[in-house]
């Protein structure tokens, strides 16, 4: 039972850690970002695109991690 809970905790800490780090990165680097000579609207679009890409990457990594952990656990159980 401990291994099952540990699998969940690994994913939970990954999701939570990325959420906190991502919020900090957006607040510290992306929101105050300025590009000389670029107007405000374009700058805002760039900020949204960068933030959305970070979120997408986070979700894709999360899905990959969950899928690979699940199928590895299934294979290990079948090989026993």
């Amino acid at each position, binding site marked *: *039972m401990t*291994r*099952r*809970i540990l*699998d*969940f*905790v690994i*994913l*939970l*800490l990954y*999701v*939570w850690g990325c*959420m*906190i780090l991502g*919020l*900090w990165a957006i*607040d510290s680097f992306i929101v105050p970002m300025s590009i000389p000579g670029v107007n405000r609207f374009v700058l805002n679009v760039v900020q949204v695109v960068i933030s959305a890409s970070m979120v997408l990457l986070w*979700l894709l990594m*999360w*899905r990959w991690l*969950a*899928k690979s*952990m*699940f199928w590895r*656990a*299934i294979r*290990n*159980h*079948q090989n*026993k």
Partner: protein
Amino acid sequence: MIFATGFIVSIVFLPVIMRRMRGLGIVGHDIHKKDKPLVPEMGGIALLIGLSASSLVGIILFPTKSDLLVSFWGTVAIAGIIGAIDDYKPLNAKVKPFLTLFACIPILLMRTYTPSIVFPIIGGTRLTRVYPLLIPVVMAVTSNAVNMMDPFNGVMAGSSTVITATLMLAAIALRRGDAIILCAMLLGSLLAFYYFNRYPSRVFSGDVGSLSVGTALGAIAIMGRLEVVAVVAFMPQIMNAFYGLSSVGRLYERREVARPVEVLEDGRLMARDDPGAPLTLARFVLARGPLREDEAARVFIILSVISGLLAIVTAYLITVAP
């Protein structure tokens, strides 16, 4: 007093509802038992009655909070009606989430929300225009996430009880008085329901119960200003929904896809290795080998407690934010 009212009214009404549902033939098979016994459905109605009684007591005790309590009750009641319709005549997988978007109408009309979110580490952010647009989405996500995570006896009620208790502790830590009242209202009814719904279940909540509870939790997050804490406490439900939806690739109803879990000859539950079955949290938990239903339900409660602890840490990070 609010907590006790919800608990007593729900525990008194549950046997009545159970007898009534059995009499009307509104019963469902407990599919994870070998003999598949018939269990009364729509026990969530008693939960709604308990919540209504505790709302009434809350209005009497805190007359200055009547807007808050009426909008909370109205929001949960709308979700309950949608759930009852779904129990009576199953709704399409896209129609149900769409309808739950409208549960938040009382909150929006009575303006019982604060358009800002306090993030851990970062601090407060004003979202005057965006926030009201996010409220319907939050209601749809929380109600359907709770509705999707009802795989074994007592899991929906047990994990929702843990989330409510977590939100209450976070509300105490962050001094959010409104959230404390709302959590006390929900916690009483939920505990009473859990007593009857735990393994082996004597009653099922039906969608009337799960959509109401999910919406109530979403409303507490919004009205009690506990948005980020709620996201962390909700992590098992979010993971379950995310894995399920990303593996199937669309919104789905349980009856439309392959079963993620099968019952073995000895009555234990095992994850199916069918690549077409949704990757639910139940399947994830059972991937390491079969478990009895009560053991699997206990794992889910433990996962909710772990998420709850992390949510409390998140609440602490909010208190130290600038």
